[in-house]
């Protein structure tokens, strides 16, 4: 891949996905695009990209974008936010909401482990939990919907008792049991798009998305999250993500790292 190719990839990723493809990821990009080139019938990555630059962004462009996103995820990643969600937020929400119905959005869900972790917590405390999970990557969403996880994937972050309670083996893999599967809905979605409906959520998990976001797109993303969150809702960001001075929509909850609530100034809709 030429430096010019990489520049164009950076622009593509920033404009379509809001993703900041840093220069140190050039080799990674080359490596990730190899399989895409083979799958799409190109001799190599250069040939794939040469063709890509001559046409409008369509399925090939999105296949390239998807391959360059960061798909890494695991069950109950960083543990603490899931503990706070389960022990502190869920009991309060389930008793405050009609019929204990709690709506959660896993925004940037990748292959689904976060969404299942949220759903397990909700069902575990007897809440009527509904999890909506979205990701930009069609392939990630398809894997999440298929719900099949390898032994490595299922064990990463999940203890055996929890695994046995909520998952069942299918040949060499594991999939969610029906009672878990039925409370999670996976949809492909771009966090930069305007919301397609007026659905709102009690809790939003948008973890490890912002840190890869192009600075110029972060505000748009945060505005979208703010619109979709109920006024007394909560937002979880990743462990090393903070909002400092870039939005007036959210304020951090002290003593709960990564947890945000709406700032008073963004409660105007309630008035």
């Amino acid at each position: 891949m030429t430096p010019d190719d990489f520049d164009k990839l950076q622009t593509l990723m920033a404009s379509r996905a809001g993703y900041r493809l840093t220069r140190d990821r050039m080799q990674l990009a080359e490596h990730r695009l190899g399989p895409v080139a083979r799958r799409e019938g190109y001799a190599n990555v250069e040939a794939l990209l040469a063709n890509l630059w001559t046409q409008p962004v369509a399925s090939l462009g999105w296949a390239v974008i998807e391959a360059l996103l960061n798909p890494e995820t695991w069950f109950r990643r960083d543990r603490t936010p899931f503990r706070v969600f389960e022990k502190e937020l869920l009991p309060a929400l389930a008793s405050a909401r009609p019929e204990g119905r709690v709506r959660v959005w896993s925004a940037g869900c990748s292959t689904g482990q976060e969404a299942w972790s949220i759903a397990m917590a909700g069902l575990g405390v007897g809440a009527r939990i509904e999890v909506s999970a979205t990701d930009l990557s069609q392939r990630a969403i398809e894997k999440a919907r298929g719900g099949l996880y390898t032994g490595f994937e299922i064990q990463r972050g999940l203890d055996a008792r929890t695994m046995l309670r909520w998952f069942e083996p299918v040949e060499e893999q594991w999939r969610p049991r029906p009672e878990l599967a039925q409370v999670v809905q996976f949809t492909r979605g771009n966090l930069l798009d305007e919301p397609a409906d007026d659905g709102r959520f009690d809790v939003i998990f948008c973890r490890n998305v912002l840190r890869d976001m192009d600075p110029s797109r972060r505000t748009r993303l945060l505005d979208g999250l703010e619109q979709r969150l109920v006024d007394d809702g909560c937002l979880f960001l990743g462990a090393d993500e903070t909002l400092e001075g870039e939005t007036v929509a959210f304020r951090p909850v002290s003593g709960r790292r990564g947890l945000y609530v709406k700032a008073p100034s963004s409660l105007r809709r309630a008035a």
Partner: protein
Amino acid sequence: MPLTTCLIVDDSRIIRKVARRIVEAMGYEVDEAADGAEALTYCTGAMPDVLLIDWNMPVMDGLSFLRRLRALPDGRRPKVLFCTIETHPDRIAEALAAGADDYVMKPFDGEILQSKLEEVGAIAA
């Protein structure tokens, strides 16, 4: 952090070597036993803080050893991860019922072992 001890009980020298490398990197002082009987002798002498136990081994298998271990004075204290190729839910449940704190399906890697040890509270998360 004070050094904690881990006993790896597996009849495969290769598995012991792989597991040793992983838990040593986490700061454990590691010893090895090739079957349950050897491990039981070890534990009556000095109780480790953590044990990784394979299921199928000659002389005394992992499940028999685990039950005997839990019956020893101080035998409930160590954290036990059962690490085997058995993936049937009934077998996993059996090992947990016999006193394993968690269960690791082989093959595993460092990330899985680390996350399981954190989960059972053997190392700080």
